[in-house]
């Protein structure tokens, strides 16, 4: 009986609907956070490729996303999966929250997706370089592979 009730609740919670899922609110107190799940797995397929160009103080520009992804591609078991997932997940949320237009952005707290991404980039740089850079510039490149559209956002960080 319990199992039937449990999986009915899970079913109602995960039910993919085009409109608002009213059942989800009904079973939410039971399912979240202990049994939260979502099995859409690559449906829909991600449509964007990214570059995260970074320049610290007087160093050269470096594409962090390319560097981290390349290391993970060379050895899938070398322990870079978490870092790459954190970066790519936050980039996808960021891309969905900004205009598809190349422009200079303000380094402020108004876009929480940018704040999350900024934390990943700056703290990764601290771990990589051993110290926080005084002047950091970031260019985030987003390419929609389906429509072949590319745009960039430039940030100058205030530390």
């Amino acid at each position, binding site marked *: 009986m319990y199992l039937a009730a449990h999986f009915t609740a899970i079913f109602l919670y*995960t039910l993919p609907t085009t409109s608002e899922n009213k059942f989800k609110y009904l079973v939410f107190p039971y399912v979240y956070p202990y049994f939260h799940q979502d099995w*859409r797995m690559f*449906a829909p397929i991600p449509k964007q490729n990214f570059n995260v160009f970074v320049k610290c103080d007087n160093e050269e520009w470096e594409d962090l996303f390319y560097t981290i992804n390349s290391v*993970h591609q060379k050895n*899938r078991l070398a322990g870079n*999966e*978490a870092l790459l997932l954190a970066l790519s997940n936050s980039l996808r949320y960021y891309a969905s929250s900004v205009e598809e237009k190349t422009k200079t952005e303000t380094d402020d707290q108004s876009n929480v997706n940018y704040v999350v991404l900024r934390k*990943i980039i700056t*703290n990764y740089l601290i771990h990589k370089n051993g110290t926080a850079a005084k002047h950091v510039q970031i260019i985030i490149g987003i390419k929609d592979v389906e429509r072949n559209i590319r745009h960039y956002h430039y940030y100058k960080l205030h530390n």
Partner: protein
Amino acid sequence: MSTLIRYLFEDFRNKEEARFLQRLLGMFLVYKCLYLLLNYSLLFSESSIIYQNDVHLSWWRQAVFVLFNSESTALAFIFLIIALFSAIAVVLTPRYSRLLFFILWFTINNINNKIFSTLSGGDHLLQHFLFFSIFLSGNFGENQFSEVSKVLHNTGLIALKIQLCFVYAFAGYTKLLDPDWMNGTAISDVFMINDFSLPAYYNIQPGLLTSFLNYTVIAYQLLFSVVVWIKPLKKWFLLIGVIQHLFIAFVLGLPSFGFIMIVAYAIFHKPNFKNYV
């Protein structure tokens, strides 16, 4: 109804598969804990890459956010060490398995919530498998409580099987609603995404092979909940799944997800390795 009651009360069911699953889960968690300890500074220190924002939920939901809401950076280390030693114990001995799985479920839930932005679907499946493994018996001992133990064990077994079938049925169903999967271009589309591919695959164009793989994935996911109960087909069907998940681990670059899905298969089949040798 009587069949169900007999199934639940008569004996410990699928003993070999249950113990095999417990040990594989233990081994996977040893790998996961060591992997997280290697990345400790990046994920759990004061300069962690994870965005932190206090979570305030009702008291009975707070248990899995203890680590998330804690300001202590040492607490994550304690959780990881407890999880690591519990996982080693699960691999080595069938004793106290329910207690050990409860500890693992609690610690891994907390750890996963702390590093939420690094999680994949595999981490969620792991949490559910740890929860239902609390019900499984480790040593199948006969004593004055064995009737209760049998019911708990067999209920856990059913839950684990339904959970895995649910994952596949749901994943297959959502693909039926997605135009890329229905057009047969989803696999070639994924190869174009740099962080889910390898450089050699970036420019693969949609063709016969990618379409075949596309529809094979959908068919596999939709048929899983049926075929996995047909004894003569089960072993070979799961073997296709293992190949599929190794592909996800090494080509798509999601080893944690790929491995936990393979581990989950143990609840349906324990290979007799002696036969293969």
